[in-house]
């Protein structure tokens, strides 16, 4: 990486890392430490090929693809940080709307965390990043049919786990978020 490319890379990280970290946060099922680790890993992979990536004018797409694929394949966090398997630590006591928001966050993140990694990646890309099925297929390196089937399975599980929370409390707080 020459000095000009390094300057471009730094600008890219400064401009885009906050949004990328949010995606990483959902991909990891709401583990902040793991999300930071995941983003750093994906950016390192991006930096190695920065010259080629910039020529194609697709740096953000490359990072997002790296995020999704690294999240599916990593092993270090599985060995070292089992916390990703379990529920969030209890948050401080809250009342009223604040309590409802905490419950929603817990419910949504717990439901995401319970998904297999590939299904979680599909959900995040489809419904958080609002990408089309074909875009998700390209990012994950799978067929559109696989994206559809994974989406169907993931939605069924989310509906069973998280849907109860939202249906129970819908109208009370969901749209206040």
């Amino acid at each position, binding site marked *: 990486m020459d000095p000009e490319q*390094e300057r471009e*890379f730094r600008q890219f*990280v400064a401009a885009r*890392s*906050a949004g*990328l*970290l949010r995606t990483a*946060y*959902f991909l990891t099922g709401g583990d*902040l*430490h793991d*999300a*930071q*680790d995941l*983003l*750093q890993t994906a*950016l*390192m992979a991006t*930096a*190695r090929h920065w010259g080629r990536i910039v020529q194609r004018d697709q740096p953000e797409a490359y990072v997002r693809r790296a995020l999704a694929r690294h999240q599916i*394949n990593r*092993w*270090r966090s*599985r*060995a*070292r*940080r*089992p*916390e990703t398997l*379990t*529920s*969030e*630590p209890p948050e401080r006591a809250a009342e009223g709307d604040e309590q409802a*928001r905490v419950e*929603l*966050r817990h419910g*949504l993140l*717990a*439901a995401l*965390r*319970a*998904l*297999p*990694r*590939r299904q979680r990646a599909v*959900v995040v890309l489809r*419904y*958080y990043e609002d990408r089309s099925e074909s875009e998700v297929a390209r990012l994950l390196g799978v067929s559109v049919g696989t994206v559809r089937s994974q989406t169907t399975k993931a*939605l069924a*599980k*989310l509906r*069973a*786990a*998280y*849907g109860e929370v*939202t249906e129970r409390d*819908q109208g009370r707080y*969901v*749209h206040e*978020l």
Partner: protein
Amino acid sequence: MSFEDQLRSDLGGLRLPETLAPPADLADTVLIGMRRQARRRALVAAGGLAIAVAVAGATAPTWLSPQPSPGPIVSTSRACGGPLPTRPPAPAWEYFNPLTFEIDAGSVTGYRVKAHHLSTYYQTLEMVNPASNRIVGVLLYAAGGEPHRFDAQNNAVPFDPGAGEPAGSVHGAPAFWLPDDGFGTVGLNPQGLAWRWAPGAWVLVFAGQVTPGPDPAASTVDPAELRTIATQVAPQLELGVGAPVTSPFSMPVPDCTRLATSILFRETNNNGAPYTRFLLGFDTADKVDPTYPPPDETQPSLVVMADNRGAPDNLDAQTWYPEDLGHPAYVNDGTLSVYGVSGFAVEIWSVAMPNADTDAEKARLAAGIFRTITVHPGAADGEAAWGDPIVP
């Protein structure tokens, strides 16, 4: 509103933690890491034998060492190419047995051993002193391992610990202070001490402060105090002890693999309850790479892991494994998780194993391996009941 629209709305509107912000030095960190990786690859490509050792996850110390000449390999199953000898510790410490502890910190007062990582050409140990918030890391090289550090350009360069500032002696061998930087971190601002524990074999001991939280800059650590800790701990370590690794479970070496690593973590869960996690990593027989990859970059071909922290609370949403394994079993992207196995959860996953390319094939392979596992009686009650990890 449809459920999909609801999900889209909730994900987009979810209030995220205030701490969810990229660190200001993210680009620097990434570029440094990228250059280190590039340097490692260059060393390997040039015939150098390099390895990076991570002891403590995200706050891991990073050391780089060329490897000594590859020795015989740990037992490989007979199904692929015939039996190979099991691997005792080499007489001259050219290599280690991943099932034999060579570092004993039992005499170090005030510290609790948190992690062991045993591999072929290095062993590491990490211990903490909760009262003083100090952490000590030990990196034990096999003979011929040449310590490396990172220079100002973040290139990994070999260095001679013996050229450092004299630090007296440890176990009768001259000891030397390591440079202040260039080693990654063991906690914060680590101070390192080195001596030759066997002919041609270095051991490095680092003392640092446990990372205090989101604002490490707020921490003040007296280097002199850390040096004192290193000099106090070093002579209390026993090296080359040859203590057998015990495991909560036993299993035969899976077909076409050799044992590459064993890892033991003693952790606490979110509620502060202690638990233990033990992991065996196997590599495929045709993956005989003397530059065994660092644990944070390339995973073993097959991993078998067990812990007694209990089942997660979201099992209802997980996918059952379709065959009866005698316990609640779930599959997630080809990873098999089996709960309630004599007090342990067992997790098995693989990459690049023969005939296990799809998730379904990986799950079937994992299920087959699970059926070969036996938890030692009473293992969940404590490590005293653990036994041999590998059975013939």
